[in-house]
Protein backbone atom coordinates (compact mmCIF):
# COMPACT_ATOMS: atom_id res chain seq x y z
CA UNK A 1 0.00 0.00 0.00
CA UNK A 2 1.26 3.47 -0.91
CA UNK A 3 -0.14 6.50 0.83
CA UNK A 4 -0.34 10.25 0.26
CA UNK A 5 -1.36 12.57 3.09
CA UNK A 6 -2.40 16.10 2.22
CA UNK A 7 -4.59 18.89 3.51
CA UNK A 8 -8.19 18.26 2.49
CA UNK A 9 -8.37 21.22 0.11
CA UNK A 10 -9.67 21.63 -3.44
CA UNK A 11 -6.31 22.97 -4.60
CA UNK A 12 -4.75 19.61 -3.63
CA UNK A 13 -6.91 17.61 -6.07
CA UNK A 14 -4.22 17.86 -8.80
CA UNK A 15 -1.63 16.58 -6.29
CA UNK A 16 -3.80 13.56 -5.45
CA UNK A 17 -4.49 12.92 -9.14
CA UNK A 18 -0.77 13.09 -9.97
CA UNK A 19 0.04 10.68 -7.12
CA UNK A 20 -2.54 8.11 -8.25
CA UNK A 21 -1.72 8.54 -11.96
CA UNK A 22 1.93 7.78 -11.13
CA UNK A 23 0.87 4.54 -9.45
CA UNK A 24 -1.43 3.64 -12.35
CA UNK A 25 1.26 4.24 -14.96
CA UNK A 26 3.61 1.94 -13.03
CA UNK A 27 1.12 -0.93 -13.40
CA UNK A 28 0.25 -0.20 -17.05
CA UNK A 29 -3.33 0.77 -16.28
CA UNK A 30 -5.37 1.28 -19.47
CA UNK A 31 -5.98 4.97 -20.24
CA UNK A 32 -9.78 4.66 -20.04
CA UNK A 33 -9.66 3.20 -16.53
CA UNK A 34 -7.16 5.89 -15.51
CA UNK A 35 -9.48 8.67 -16.70
CA UNK A 36 -12.44 7.08 -14.88
CA UNK A 37 -10.35 6.90 -11.71
CA UNK A 38 -9.26 10.52 -12.14
CA UNK A 39 -12.92 11.56 -12.33
CA UNK A 40 -13.63 9.51 -9.18
CA UNK A 41 -10.78 11.32 -7.37
CA UNK A 42 -12.25 14.68 -8.35
CA UNK A 43 -15.66 13.68 -7.02
CA UNK A 44 -14.55 11.97 -3.81
CA UNK A 45 -11.57 14.06 -2.74
CA UNK A 46 -13.52 17.15 -3.81
CA UNK A 47 -16.37 16.11 -1.47
CA UNK A 48 -13.93 15.68 1.42
CA UNK A 49 -12.32 19.05 0.68
CA UNK A 50 -15.71 20.78 0.62
CA UNK A 51 -17.53 19.10 3.49
CA UNK A 52 -15.44 16.90 5.79
CA UNK A 53 -14.11 19.61 8.08
CA UNK A 54 -16.93 22.13 7.72
CA UNK A 55 -14.77 25.06 6.66
CA UNK A 56 -11.91 24.24 9.07
CA UNK A 57 -8.73 22.62 7.80
CA UNK A 58 -7.92 18.95 8.19
CA UNK A 59 -5.93 16.17 6.64
CA UNK A 60 -6.97 13.43 4.28
CA UNK A 61 -5.08 10.32 3.27
CA UNK A 62 -5.27 8.58 -0.09
CA UNK A 63 -4.17 4.96 0.05
CA UNK A 64 -3.39 3.14 -3.17
CA UNK A 65 -3.24 -0.62 -3.39
CA UNK A 66 -2.94 -3.00 -6.34
CA UNK A 67 -3.34 -6.74 -6.18
CA UNK A 68 -1.32 -8.09 -9.11
CA UNK A 69 -3.00 -11.54 -8.97
CA UNK A 70 -6.58 -10.32 -9.23
CA UNK A 71 -5.61 -7.10 -11.13
CA UNK A 72 -7.73 -5.19 -8.65
CA UNK A 73 -6.92 -1.57 -7.83
CA UNK A 74 -8.25 -0.13 -4.59
CA UNK A 75 -8.02 3.48 -3.53
CA UNK A 76 -9.14 4.48 -0.04
CA UNK A 77 -9.97 8.08 0.90
CA UNK A 78 -9.61 8.58 4.64
CA UNK A 79 -10.57 11.69 6.61
CA UNK A 80 -11.18 12.46 10.30
CA UNK A 81 -14.04 14.87 9.65
CA UNK A 82 -17.78 14.76 10.21
CA UNK A 83 -19.18 11.23 9.86
CA UNK A 84 -20.63 11.04 6.36
CA UNK A 85 -21.66 8.05 4.30
CA UNK A 86 -22.07 9.27 0.70
CA UNK A 87 -23.44 5.86 -0.28
CA UNK A 88 -26.48 6.40 1.94
CA UNK A 89 -27.93 9.08 -0.34
CA UNK A 90 -30.49 8.17 -2.94
CA UNK A 91 -29.52 8.03 -6.60
CA UNK A 92 -30.48 11.15 -8.56
CA UNK A 93 -33.23 10.93 -11.18
CA UNK A 94 -31.19 11.05 -14.41
CA UNK A 95 -34.30 11.18 -16.61
CA UNK A 96 -35.38 14.69 -15.56
CA UNK A 97 -35.36 17.55 -18.06
CA UNK A 98 -32.82 20.36 -17.92
CA UNK A 99 -35.27 22.64 -16.10
CA UNK A 100 -35.99 20.10 -13.35
CA UNK A 101 -32.40 19.02 -13.01
CA UNK A 102 -30.14 19.49 -10.01
CA UNK A 103 -26.57 18.36 -9.66
CA UNK A 104 -26.81 16.97 -6.13
CA UNK A 105 -25.68 13.38 -5.81
CA UNK A 106 -24.56 13.18 -9.43
CA UNK A 107 -20.86 12.84 -8.62
CA UNK A 108 -21.16 9.85 -6.34
CA UNK A 109 -23.66 8.30 -8.76
CA UNK A 110 -21.11 8.65 -11.55
CA UNK A 111 -18.43 6.99 -9.41
CA UNK A 112 -20.77 4.09 -8.62
CA UNK A 113 -21.39 3.54 -12.33
CA UNK A 114 -17.74 3.61 -13.43
CA UNK A 115 -16.07 1.71 -10.58
CA UNK A 116 -16.55 -2.01 -9.86
CA UNK A 117 -17.31 -1.46 -6.21
CA UNK A 118 -17.42 1.32 -3.64
CA UNK A 119 -17.53 0.84 0.12
CA UNK A 120 -17.83 3.11 3.14
CA UNK A 121 -16.97 2.49 6.77
CA UNK A 122 -16.60 4.64 9.85
CA UNK A 123 -13.47 3.34 11.50
CA UNK A 124 -11.69 4.73 14.56
CA UNK A 125 -13.28 8.13 14.16
CA UNK A 126 -12.46 8.24 10.45
CA UNK A 127 -14.48 8.11 7.24
CA UNK A 128 -13.01 5.46 4.96
CA UNK A 129 -14.39 5.46 1.43
CA UNK A 130 -12.82 2.91 -0.92
CA UNK A 131 -13.21 2.46 -4.65
CA UNK A 132 -12.31 -0.74 -6.48
CA UNK A 133 -11.52 -1.09 -10.17
CA UNK A 134 -10.33 -4.22 -11.93
CA UNK A 135 -7.99 -3.70 -14.86
Amino acid at each position, binding site marked *: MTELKVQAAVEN*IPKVTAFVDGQLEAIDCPM*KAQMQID*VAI*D*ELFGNIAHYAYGGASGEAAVQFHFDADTRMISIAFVDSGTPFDPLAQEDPDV*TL*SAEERGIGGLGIFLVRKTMDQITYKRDNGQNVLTIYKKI
Partner: protein
Amino acid sequence: MTISKQQNGKALTLALEGRLDTVTAPELEKELRASTAAIDTLTLDFAKLDYISSAGLRVLLSAHKEMSAKGGLKIQHVNEIVQEVFEVTGFGDILTIE
Protein backbone atom coordinates in the same frame (compact mmCIF):
# COMPACT_ATOMS: atom_id res chain seq x y z
CA MET B 1 -7.29 23.50 -18.57
CA THR B 2 -6.85 26.00 -21.36
CA ILE B 3 -9.75 27.70 -23.16
CA SER B 4 -9.34 28.95 -26.74
CA LYS B 5 -11.93 31.41 -28.02
CA GLN B 6 -13.13 31.94 -31.53
CA GLN B 7 -15.88 34.44 -32.16
CA ASN B 8 -17.69 34.88 -35.43
CA GLY B 9 -20.33 37.59 -35.12
CA LYS B 10 -22.75 36.30 -32.52
CA ALA B 11 -21.43 32.73 -32.66
CA LEU B 12 -18.82 31.82 -30.09
CA THR B 13 -16.75 28.65 -30.03
CA LEU B 14 -14.73 27.71 -26.96
CA ALA B 15 -12.23 24.88 -27.35
CA LEU B 16 -11.31 23.27 -24.04
CA GLU B 17 -8.07 21.43 -23.45
CA GLY B 18 -7.29 19.35 -20.37
CA ARG B 19 -9.73 18.50 -17.60
CA LEU B 20 -13.09 20.04 -16.75
CA ASP B 21 -13.27 19.31 -13.03
CA THR B 22 -13.66 20.88 -9.58
CA VAL B 23 -10.53 22.99 -10.00
CA THR B 24 -11.11 24.16 -13.57
CA ALA B 25 -14.92 24.40 -13.85
CA PRO B 26 -14.90 27.89 -12.27
CA GLU B 27 -12.62 29.08 -15.12
CA LEU B 28 -15.19 28.02 -17.71
CA GLU B 29 -17.98 29.51 -15.63
CA LYS B 30 -16.13 32.83 -15.51
CA GLU B 31 -15.48 32.79 -19.25
CA LEU B 32 -19.15 32.07 -19.98
CA ARG B 33 -20.36 34.74 -17.60
CA ALA B 34 -18.22 37.27 -19.46
CA SER B 35 -19.33 36.27 -22.95
CA THR B 36 -22.80 34.69 -23.15
CA ALA B 37 -24.77 37.95 -22.98
CA ALA B 38 -23.34 39.14 -26.32
CA ILE B 39 -23.80 35.91 -28.32
CA ASP B 40 -26.60 33.88 -29.88
CA THR B 41 -25.00 30.48 -30.29
CA LEU B 42 -22.36 28.75 -28.22
CA THR B 43 -20.26 25.79 -29.34
CA LEU B 44 -17.99 23.92 -26.97
CA ASP B 45 -15.28 21.93 -28.71
CA PHE B 46 -14.19 18.99 -26.54
CA ALA B 47 -11.67 17.50 -29.01
CA LYS B 48 -8.83 18.05 -26.56
CA LEU B 49 -10.80 17.57 -23.36
CA ASP B 50 -9.57 14.56 -21.36
CA TYR B 51 -12.50 14.18 -18.99
CA ILE B 52 -15.36 15.90 -17.20
CA SER B 53 -16.65 15.50 -13.65
CA SER B 54 -19.92 16.60 -12.05
CA ALA B 55 -18.45 20.06 -11.37
CA GLY B 56 -18.15 20.47 -15.16
CA LEU B 57 -21.66 19.12 -15.72
CA ARG B 58 -23.03 21.81 -13.42
CA VAL B 59 -21.50 24.53 -15.61
CA LEU B 60 -22.77 22.86 -18.80
CA LEU B 61 -26.28 22.64 -17.38
CA SER B 62 -26.41 26.32 -16.53
CA ALA B 63 -24.93 27.25 -19.94
CA HIS B 64 -27.53 25.03 -21.61
CA LYS B 65 -30.35 26.75 -19.74
CA GLU B 66 -29.06 30.21 -20.56
CA MET B 67 -28.46 29.47 -24.25
CA SER B 68 -31.73 27.56 -24.81
CA ALA B 69 -33.56 30.91 -24.79
CA LYS B 70 -31.34 31.94 -27.73
CA GLY B 71 -29.60 29.96 -30.46
CA GLY B 72 -28.59 27.15 -28.17
CA LEU B 73 -25.52 25.31 -26.98
CA LYS B 74 -23.90 22.48 -28.85
CA ILE B 75 -20.99 20.30 -27.89
CA GLN B 76 -18.60 18.84 -30.43
CA HIS B 77 -15.92 16.14 -30.62
CA VAL B 78 -16.66 14.32 -27.39
CA ASN B 79 -14.27 11.50 -26.46
CA GLU B 80 -15.28 8.10 -25.07
CA ILE B 81 -14.80 9.06 -21.41
CA VAL B 82 -16.85 12.25 -21.70
CA GLN B 83 -19.54 10.40 -23.70
CA GLU B 84 -19.79 7.80 -20.93
CA VAL B 85 -20.24 10.53 -18.31
CA PHE B 86 -23.01 12.13 -20.44
CA GLU B 87 -24.79 8.80 -20.92
CA VAL B 88 -24.59 7.63 -17.32
CA THR B 89 -25.88 10.94 -15.95
CA GLY B 90 -28.63 11.42 -18.54
CA PHE B 91 -26.92 14.57 -19.85
CA GLY B 92 -26.76 12.94 -23.27
CA ASP B 93 -30.56 13.43 -23.46
CA ILE B 94 -30.39 17.08 -22.41
CA LEU B 95 -27.42 18.43 -24.33
CA THR B 96 -26.97 18.72 -28.08
CA ILE B 97 -23.89 16.65 -28.88
CA GLU B 98 -22.44 16.43 -32.36
